[in-house]
């Protein structure tokens, strides 16, 4: 859904169409995305159009990237430590 929206705005039914999900499940997913600020939607007449908020996506991206990098460094250090202290067999 996020992938589709990153290509441009779409209506709820357009988002639901390629997915093997009920319309109400799609609406629930969108509610989660909207609550996280990643997606904004606007109702014009009977059509609700969804738009991705790129700055929010970038924030999540930066945050995960930073945390992953710090975990990777930490776990590599642990690996070095475990290798150095390997008991002789």
């Amino acid at each position, binding site marked *: *859904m*996020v*992938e589709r929206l*990153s290509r441009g705005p779409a209506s709820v039914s357009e988002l639901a169409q390629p997915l093997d999900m009920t319309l*109400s*499940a799609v*609406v*629930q*997913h969108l*509610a*989660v*995305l909207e609550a*996280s*600020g*990643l997606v904004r939607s606007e109702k014009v007449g009977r059509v609700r159009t969804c738009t991705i908020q790129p700055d*929010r*996506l*970038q*924030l*999540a*991206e*930066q*945050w*995960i*990237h*930073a*945390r*992953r990098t710090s*975990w*990777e460094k*930490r*776990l*590599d*250090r*642990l*690996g*070095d*430590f*475990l*290798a150095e*202290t*390997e008991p002789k067999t």
Partner: protein
Amino acid sequence: MTQRSVVHATFVVERTYTATPARTFAAWADPKLKALWFPAAEEAGYEFDFREGGREYSVGTAEAGGPEFVFAVDYREIVPNERIVYAYYMDMGGVRISVSVATIEFHAKGAGTRMVVTEMGAFLDGHDTVAQREHGTNWLIDRLGESLNEVPAAT
């Protein structure tokens, strides 16, 4: 006034070590062993109380003159040689930047260990110091997708 916002995200980091699960777990559990690989253990004021309900606390700067970071852990579940679950928050320059749950699983793999770290976090108000930005990350979308797989019941 601070613009309030929360981004939720989940990610997984895995490593396979030749060390046994018991030895890998001990590197997290034993203060003397942990001090040998965990950088924050060298900082003044470091606290480490490894038991359920115990706390780990460190304060330090990533670079000279940079903002002060606080890393505060509450150990919530400890299954020796198998699993550690803890909640933690991070502050940067006195401002809370995130609250997370981290799970560390130790799986026997041959004589060694496959260790899986999963972090589920709430990232607060867009505070961030990361200069490097990674663009076009499909993995982010995958991870976000995974974190969204559990949809709350409709109200």
